[in-house]
């Protein structure tokens, strides 16, 4: 056998090893998934069909589901936008999300160590949550993150520095009140 053939066999063997892998496209059947947005579509009657319930601060208005939001809150006189959003898995974690919000406020990214120094932990009925306040010269964000099994829940309030300062206690009492929705259908 010539050297050329031997080398070819060796290369083919290596190519075989490299070529082994998973199929590119597969088809299978699975149980039907129930998605949150499909529930929202079917039941856009203004009631809370989300997996969570909460105690809304008295002076806030409430609007169920909009885009990715489970619920939105505001002030009748305007100037405040509060949302509850749920994402699957760890959804990027605290550092990535805080830096994303910092970016929205045109602030520089911070290290995880510095971010954790600004985080405060409190308890709610669905578990512990971490909250922080982010501000630039004009605007403030108050944000809470709940790490739940298989999902992450975000509560975010956006407004001027004065309004956020004024509504901080309402925001935190909303965060503490979040619980599983017993009346979800």
């Amino acid at each position, binding site marked *: 056998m010539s050297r050329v053939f031997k080398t070819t066999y060796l290369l083919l063997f290596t190519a075989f090893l490299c070529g082994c892998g998973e199929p590119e496209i597969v088809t299978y059947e699975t149980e*039907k998934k129930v998605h949150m*947005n499909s529930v929202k579509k079917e039941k856009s009657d203004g009631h809370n069909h989300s997996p969570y319930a909460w105690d809304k601060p008295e002076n806030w208005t409430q609007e169920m589901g909009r885009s*990715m939001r489970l619920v939105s809150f505001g002030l009748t006189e305007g100037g405040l936008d509060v949302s509850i959003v749920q994402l699957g898995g760890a959804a990027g974690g605290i550092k990535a999300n805080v830096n994303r919000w910092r970016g929205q406020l045109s602030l520089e990214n911070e290290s995880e160590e510095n971010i954790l120094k600004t985080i405060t932990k409190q308890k709610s009925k669905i578990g512990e949550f971490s909250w922080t306040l982010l501000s630039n010269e004009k605007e403030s964000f108050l944000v809470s993150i709940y790490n739940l099994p298989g999902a992450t829940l975000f509560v975010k309030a956006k407004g001027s520095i004065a309004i956020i300062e004024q509504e901080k206690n309402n925001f935190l009492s909303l965060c503490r009140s979040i619980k599983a929705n017993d009346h979800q259908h």
Partner: protein
Amino acid sequence: MSLKKNKLIRKISSPAIFFYASLWLIVLLVIGTVIQKDIGLYRAQETYFSAWFISYEFIYLPAGRTTLTIVFINLLFQFLFMSAWSIKKIGLHITHFGAILLLCGGFLTAYFSSEGSMEIKEGGRSSTFRDYHKLQLSLVDESQPNKDIVTAVNELMLYGGSTINNLPFGADIKVLSFYRNCDPRRRKEGGADNLKGLSKNFSIFPIPLDKQDERNRAGIVLELTGLSAEVNGIYTLVEEMEPHQHFMVGDKQWRMELEHKYYKIPFEIELIDFEKKVYPGTAKAKSYKSDVFVHDKGVKRKSIVEMNAPMRLHGYTFFQSSFTQSKDGESTIFTVVKNYGRMFPYIASIIICIGLMIHCFLLLPKLIKKGQ
């Protein structure tokens, strides 16, 4: 000409190859171990041990898989063509055979193993499990009343510029961009007319990978063509993030989502009851136990999965790993592992031990004589 004298075989089976490859493996091991502090365990494994090559700008260096393949070929050639087949060397031959078997097991594990989690509600059934790291683009036919028919496109096909053809609804997909970690941001201005669903309001931007892989959130921008003008367009999907993108093809509704890869198992598991025991006076878990029915080819049988007592069936191992509680009841979470090479390390280790013992035993008289 004897094979032993063949130049090519002599080169391939040279002990120098094994020596330098082993040295390189040590280097990889040190780098991979040190760097996992910065890039995380999963990324370090993928970059230095599971990959074929490590690339730094234009320099390509062999990674773990290439190095181990070289070691395997070298040992195999040494074993088959260069061994002195005498009874005195039998211990060494058995040891070499054990080492080759160990590498074969590694090959099977690298290519044919899968690992993920399966979550089942009490009273519910499941025949799929979800990979911890790998992703898939799922095109789901939602027209059936009781089931979804999923066409899953492997993550390996999802890269900027790739085209996916032969899809079940006759469309083509062109991947415009794919980021393993991304940040979805609301568009400040309206985009092109052919933006659909989430794309109308959001665009995605790549961000550096987090060292904890589960924190990374992949995103894809793709163009669907070959369907009606209403459906054709640019869609954005973000890993495990709703709303998913829906579209109609004929009278069927389809859903598109970017999610963790799912594996179908050839039987079904039904959770009868999940039981959690805690240490008295605390909320600390003492043990978890799941009573299950296994539905296998028309046969239903009862089984128990509990901590430190996994269930094994058809090459799959189910470990009790966690649970969730909600108002709908409890759900159990199993870690599911399929590994064809599972037994190889045990068998190979026993063979290597036997080989070394025989070699020592055969050398013993010589050593005793030398000692005297």
